[in-house]
């Protein structure tokens, strides 16, 4: 098989666009990557540790793969969809019934969108918990947060396009939340809707945002995001102790979570970054030795060629994602309710699931707080966390005087609980109970553990880690309650009894 292929690959036609030979030598493998327009954002060699699935679960790549699927299916949808009021809904019906494979493409677009939002949250959380936001990667973290916002906006603008009851009222809820921003809220709503009510102008505006503006912004952002990863020396890995092999006794999952070798950064973050950068330098491998599958470089970090090790993994991950999404799209239909009717408000009118947490908060706080203040604070907090060099040095939380610190912790928890009770129409259990659970888990770190893995691990987690965990748990709880346990007039329902609204 190889011989005919090799002859083909030596032909003039092939060589006119692919300027390398069959990638059976390290040189050709290098050229296959960096002389390729589409692939050259990869380095030529990658660290073995970096490409393990359990390191990052490929979440970033899967998110980008979702975006790719969305763009492709989006193109097909754009051939038929008209963003005008009576036609939008009719065109959705035509997709489902008349367009060849229209139902499948539409479903795929919808489920890929949900998957992308879920994956982007997972990617952000995992990146945080791995500590990959720490200097020198602070700005890339901010870029990532903006990509999160862009993804949410993309999903939100796309939500309106089917022009059914679900779309119309979900967008109504969202724009009303936006309108509660003091002073500029009404203007922002006017800008979003192109008018005072949701009608043709809003639809066209959302269509342009969804199909042109936001995808371009996202594409640029993703490019920047990936480029910075390269400049920062590849994905963040826990530093290797000098002369030791990497600690493989802990599963990489936990090892990746801010590997607790406190003294490691003695040389300072910048130097570490520079060192890693040197590892990743774009150096051609000039030897023709096929057998050298793994090279070892200056820092004793085993590396492998991107082609085929990383690329194959990426392709397999993409295929797996595509298969899962395709199967889901074949089985489950994207919802399409009755045509949008401004005179009939469904009860309850729910926002898209990623905003349901905010809508649940609206039950307790006025719109300015629940819809504007808390989300803005959360996003700002997310963005600026890396700039606080609070825990670059990571002394264990419970080092000296654990009792005093415990008392301080629980005082702080009590104060925060009281703060959340202030101005709320009831106790916000969805936020406060995760707080207490996180506090309890933190306090567990102070117990005298026998030597093992759990104790030290608990003891050495940093404060931002716990705060982020609390944030994540609250967000998930709020979203789950809003999605499953709220019915008409936002009363509590029991899903296995009353169904899911």
């Amino acid at each position, binding site marked *: 098989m190889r011989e005919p292929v090799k002859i083909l690959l030596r032909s003039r036609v092939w060589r006119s666009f692919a300027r390398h030979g069959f990638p059976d030598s390290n040189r050709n493998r290098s050229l296959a990557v960096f002389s390729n327009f589409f692939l050259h954002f990869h380095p030529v060699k990658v660290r*073995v540790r970096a490409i393990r699935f359990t390191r990052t679960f490929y979440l970033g790549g899967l998110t980008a793969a979702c975006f790719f699927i969305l763009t492709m299916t989006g193109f097909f949808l754009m051939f038929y969809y008209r963003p005008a009021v*009576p036609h939008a809904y*009719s065109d959705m*019906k*035509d997709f*489902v*019934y*008349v367009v*060849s*494979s*229209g*139902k*499948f*493409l539409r479903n795929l677009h919808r489920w890929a969108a949900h998957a992308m939002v879920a994956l982007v949250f997972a990617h952000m959380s995992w990146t945080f918990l791995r500590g990959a936001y720490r200097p020198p990667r602070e700005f890339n973290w901010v870029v990532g947060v903006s990509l999160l916002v862009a993804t949410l906006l993309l999903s939100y603008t796309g939500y309106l396009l089917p022009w*059914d*009851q679900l779309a119309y009222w979900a967008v109504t809820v969202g724009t009303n939340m936006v309108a509660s921003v003091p002073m500029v809220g009404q203007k922002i709503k006017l800008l979003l809707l192109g008018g005072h009510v949701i009608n043709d102008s809003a639809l066209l505006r959302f269509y342009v945002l969804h199909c042109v503006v936001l995808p371009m912004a996202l594409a640029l952002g993703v490019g920047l995001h990936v480029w910075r990863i390269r400049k920062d020396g590849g994905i963040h890995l826990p530093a290797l102790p000098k002369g030791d*092999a*990497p600690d*493989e006794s802990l599963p990489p999952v936990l090892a990746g979570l801010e590997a607790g070798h406190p003294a490691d950064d003695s040389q300072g973050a910048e130097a570490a970054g520079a060192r890693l950068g040197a590892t990743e330098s774009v150096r051609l491998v000039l030897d023709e030795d096929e057998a*050298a*599958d*793994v*090279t*070892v470089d200056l820092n004793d970090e*085993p590396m*492998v060629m991107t082609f*085929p*090790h990383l690329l*194959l*993994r990426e*392709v*397999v991950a993409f*295929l*797996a994602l*595509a*298969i899962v999404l*395709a*199967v889901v*799209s*074949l089985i489950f239909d994207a919802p*399409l*309710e*009755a*045509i949008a009717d401004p005179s009939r408000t469904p009860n309850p009118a729910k926002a898209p699931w990623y905003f349901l947490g905010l809508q649940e908060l609206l039950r307790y706080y006025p719109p300015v707080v629940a819809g504007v203040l808390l989300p803005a604070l959360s996003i700002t907090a997310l963005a600026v966390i890396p700039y606080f060099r609070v825990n670059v040095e990571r002394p264990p939380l419970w080092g000296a005087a654990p009792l005093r610190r415990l008392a301080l912790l629980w005082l702080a928890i009590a104060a925060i609980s009281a703060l959340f009770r202030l101005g709320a129409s009831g106790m916000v259990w969805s936020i406060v109970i995760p707080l207490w659970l996180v506090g309890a888990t933190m306090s567990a770190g102070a117990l005298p553990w026998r030597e093992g893995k759990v104790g030290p691990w608990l003891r050495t987690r940093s404060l931002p880690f716990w705060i982020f965990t609390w944030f994540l748990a609250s967000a998930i709880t709020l979203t789950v309650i809003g999605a499953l346990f709220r019915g008409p007039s936002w009363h509590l329902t029991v899903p296995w009894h009353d169904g899911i609204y």
Partner: protein
Amino acid sequence: MMAKDAGRATSRALGRLRVAFALLSITLLGVLAIAPATSHFSEWRAAQQRYVNLAQRAKLEPIGVRVRQAPSPTPDNVDRCGSCHLGAAGVAPVDGDPLFAAHPSIPHDPARFGCTICHGGQGRAVTGRAAHGGEANWEEPLFPRPYREAGCGVCHSRVRLPDPELVASGRALFAARGCGGCHDVDGHDLPTKRDLSKVGLRGFSRQWQDHHVRAAGESTDDRWAASPLPLGDEEHAAVDAYLQSLVGAPQLVAGKLLVARLGCRGCHRIDGVGGDGPDLSDIGGRRASELDFSRVRGEHSLAGWLRELLTDPSRLDPRSRMPAPGLAPAEIDQVITYLLSLRTDPISSAFWPPDRVRGMVLGERDFPTEGRPLFQAFCSACHGARGEGRAPAGAVAFAPAIGGDAFLAIASDGFLRETVRRGRPEHMPAWGASNGGLHPEEIDAIAAYLRTLQHALPSFAEVSASALDLARGREVFQQTCTPCHGERGEGTAIGPPLAAADNPVTARDDAIYGTLARGVDDTAMGSFRTFDAPTLRALIGAVTTLDRNHGPRKDWRPRAGDPGRGRELFGRHCVTCHGARPEGRKAPAIEDPRFVATAPDSFLTASIVRRHDRSREELRRSPDEVADVVAYLRSLGPAPASAGDR
């Protein structure tokens, strides 16, 4: 880890990855092929393939296999039913599958009209279940077979139909005289019979009887000998009405006529005309998802809900004031057909047929505006088909018998009109233009119809010819006239002197007769029409022979009563039956300013004197006491603006 070990590990991983890549690629290709395959092997394609096979066998032209669609005036604006229902899409029909049969003959062309406008369902869908409206969020399912004609009514529910009684008698005549021997009214398109099933649409000559007679004379066909003609004028009108109702939608027409006959609009409003009950103008547009089916025994659809309601209204809502209509199942189906067709905005006004434009734009009536059909359509549900009164189960109070002499004798035409126009508080809706929506001339017609229900006196000639029995006459005078006019006709607080020497009326027989026949405007003197000729003769004789020498003079005036005394009297004698609710159950609660504002003093006086069972001691009060009670009632509220007039 040594490089070599790392190398071996990564090589193994690479091998596994290559296998995974191969398997997953094939799987993905397979999965991606499913969607186009499902798209291709669709229901409609299979149906059209079947047609191609059948057409081939029948040696017909083959057709192209593609989605077929027709424009539709509904908001959905495209109907793809023809993709499976090829016969209705203008393709040559074939035998062997009901799907490919031609559409039954209807006044509209399905290729131009689409299908969903008449049948309901989802036009844009091409799968059977979704197209027939079985999708979760599609709220316009196909009209079930028994209610098919509701589709006609979606546009045509405002078709004007004649008086239901007339139509019914016309139908009976048509059947009894054997017109069906030559004429078909069911639209079966038989070659041997002349089709009358849509004659109401096409229009017909009112001289059809003359044509028949002439044709019978000229023809040699024996069947003319069995011709049922000639018909009298009334019978002719009845048959005309029946023919007018034949518009090709018998179930719909029957339902609309039933609604008119039962008087549903006495409570329910349709297009702004009707009582104070729930508005039915858009009942066909109610969404099944907004209805409560917990107590519905039948299917959970709008038709099923209506069926439950029409069978037993109190089952759906125990507090409902709607009486059970008492209809047979077939009649319920007809009413449901009509109700399902009532929509306020089914299609754009560019497509409205003339009857809808006439009704909803020009404000013309879609019901007959003569007195009797009006009474039947709007009053009979509460007051009875002949005004005999009714106490519907669950109603707050009874509806009085207004078709009988007892009431009509004391109610002037003006009083009737005013009561209809303004209604009675809490018991009767107002029917004036701004409430019930009836025009003044229609209210006049109802009042005139009620007047015809009153007993007719024998003619004056007949009365004059009867023998005079003065003793009898005096006896009748004693019972009938003295309560208001005094023992010797000398006049009282409420009734003028009959015995006055200068009373022009009581001097002449024909004047007395006229007064007894019609009563006196604006007074408590109602009519007295229940006497037969000899009794009238006797009574007139008694009045004319009254002693006129000591009666009061001509300038008699009725005396206003004392409200204080009247209040006391009312409390003692009247309140047990007439008091405020809940006591006022046996009789109207009249101690109510709103009631008093609808009744002039004359009516109150006449009611007290004449409408009670006079055998009961406490109800026989003197004229002074009657005047006092009337004064007390009047003190509760103002008199109605326009007093009675005849």
